[in-house]
């Protein structure tokens, strides 16, 4: 049995019991990365030496009878949007090429404290802006199920790494679907926790009122294991919730009898691929068979979600990304060849550094946000979007008075071809239709595979829950995964022995 055949839960048990060393486990995954990532491009950096050193120290401690952490020896791939002192942190941007943060993100610190082994940093859309990973300055990620297709985004590298068994678990971040959509398109499980459940300190900021870090893994049980180590209050993030952290693993096996799951008819409108609609309906049937009650509900403002999101997120991004000024860290344009027209050398340095450092989608969003926040447009666009955001959140509050969870598709289609939507930014934005509401409302969501298209591409199912309902989200997904085996299927590329 290879380490890559085991779940994360089994891997940590095997290391704890001495059946597998942390070094052997880490090495097995590093070897898979070396063999497979040339054709997938899921990693922006891999820390072979450092991760083997960490693994060796865990093995020594275990042998000496000293305590080891709950994730001891578990290889974890971390999205390159989280700061790591010992590996570069680029956010897949030329702006941060080679950047070494002076501190670890809180989630990274918690993973290290739990004795996880951070094997590398994963590719993503630049500054987490995109739904296909094609906005990375370091080349797109290829979907392990079909290398000509997108893995989704923005946490596409994390999703592809898990799907191709290059890491048993990965960390992603989700601002409008960036964990759930790539998880869906790559056939893995991804959880976007409630806003504030996991500290954002050290996550490179995109849209601060929407960003949330979460686990991505093969199964809900593995996600529960990771969430138990990374969730919880952090005084270093004033928006993190000071609420007790329950055991996310203990409650998984409780049956779903009587759990009410909402179904939204509008989720099955004209734009949905019939194969996706069919697989999602089958999943509802499976939940019904497991004892859940399926109830029709309505989210009246769901149609306005994408428009609201593409005002709120770019406005926050235009403010957050103002920090890339060429002075404190990041890319700085060389002085010289003055094009003129700037009020000072300083303004010229700002404008040229940012023009050289940011890619087209990041520029587009900064421009859109700056426009929507500028004098004369603020009320019509930004303030208007914040009002609609309240209506969207109220829809969720009303729905959760009637049901415990809301089910539906993650995306309207399975993975699309690389290059298919790059010519039209707006068509790419519409990909986020089913996922942005969760972030706007600040609640949680999980996506997991519920079938495959005839051409062999994974189809994702999404459950959304009220604030701090992570236990129920994970339990419902875990119960489903005990009835089905979609999450156990592997792309042909992952079956390769390395």
């Amino acid at each position: 049995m290879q380490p890559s055949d085991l779940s994360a839960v089994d891997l940590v048990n095997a290391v704890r019991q001495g059946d597998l060393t942390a070094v052997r486990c880490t090495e097995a995954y590093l070897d898979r990365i070396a063999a497979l990532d040339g054709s997938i491009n899921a990693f922006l950096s891999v820390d072979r030496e450092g991760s083997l050193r960490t693994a060796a120290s865990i093995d020594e401690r275990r042998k000496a009878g000293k305590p080891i952490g709950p994730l001891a020896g578990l290889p974890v791939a971390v999205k390159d949007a989280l700061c790591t002192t010992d590996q570069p942190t680029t956010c897949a941007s030329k702006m941060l090429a080679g950047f070494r943060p002076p501190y670890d993100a809180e989630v990274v610190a918690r993973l290290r404290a739990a004795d996880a082994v951070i094997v590398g940093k994963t590719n993503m859309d630049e500054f987490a802006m995109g739904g296909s990973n094609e906005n990375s300055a370091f080349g797109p990620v290829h979907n392990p199920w079909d290398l000509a297709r997108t893995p989704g985004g923005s946490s596409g590298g994390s999703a592809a790494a898990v799907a191709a068994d290059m890491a048993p678990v990965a960390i992603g971040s989700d601002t409008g679907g960036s964990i759930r959509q790539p998880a869906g398109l790559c056939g893995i499980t991804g959880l976007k926790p409630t806003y504030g459940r996991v500290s954002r300190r050290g996550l490179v900021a995109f849209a601060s009122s929407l960003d949330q870090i979460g686990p991505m893994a093969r199964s809900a049980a593995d996600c529960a294991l990771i969430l138990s180590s990374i969730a919880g209050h952090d005084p270093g993030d004033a928006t993190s919730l000071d609420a007790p952290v329950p055991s996310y693993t203990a409650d998984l096996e409780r049956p779903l009898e009587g759990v009410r799951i909402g179904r939204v008819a509008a989720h099955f409108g004209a734009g949905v691929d019939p194969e996706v609609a069919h697989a999602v309906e089958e999943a509802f049937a499976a939940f019904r068979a497991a004892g859940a009650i399926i109830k029709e509900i309505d989210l009246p403002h769901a149609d306005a979600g994408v428009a609201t999101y593409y005002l709120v997120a770019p406005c926050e991004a235009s403010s957050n990304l103002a920090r890339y000024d060429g002075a404190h860290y990041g890319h700085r344009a060389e002085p010289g060849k003055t094009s003129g027209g700037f009020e000072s050398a300083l303004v010229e340095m700002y404008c040229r550094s940012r023009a050289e450092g940011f890619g087209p989608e990041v520029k587009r969003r900064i421009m859109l946000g700056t426009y929507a926040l500028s004098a004369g447009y603020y009320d019509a666009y930004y303030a208007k979007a914040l009002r609609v955001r309240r209506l969207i959140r109220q829809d969720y509050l009303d729905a959760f008075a009637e049901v415990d969870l809301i089910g539906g598709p993650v995306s309207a289609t399975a993975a699309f071809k690389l290059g298919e939507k790059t010519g039209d930014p707006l068509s790419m934005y519409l990909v986020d239709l089913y996922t942005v509401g969760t972030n706007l409302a600040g609640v949680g969501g999980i996506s997991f595979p519920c079938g495959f298209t005839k051409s062999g591409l994974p189809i994702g199912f999404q459950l959304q829950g009220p604030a701090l309902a992570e236990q129920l989200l994970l339990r419902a997904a875990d119960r489903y995964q005990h009835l089905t085996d979609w999450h156990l299927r592997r792309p042909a590329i992952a079956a390769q022995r390395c």
Partner: protein
Amino acid sequence: MALSKNDVAKVGLLARLALSDAELDTMTRELSSIVGFVGQLEKIDTSAVEPLAHPLDTQNVFREDVPRPSLSTAEALQSSPRHDGECFLVPAVLGDTGSA
């Protein structure tokens, strides 16, 4: 709603992004299309709705004002493109001459 190339050039300066003439053309077309799309929100009646800036009902968060360790000067400067060991160095803030 259509934006003019001039509008986009102004926003570019506000955003501190130098845009080439070709980029201005593309950006004008794309932003007009996106602004047209997000403009659909105006059809929703929000006259009785307060803006929502934060998704959860968190109140002000206070902490004791106690000293704690922070980054050293060297750590804070470690990733700066130009510094002199104590300060970040930048080009002239006023006028159009000199650059650091």
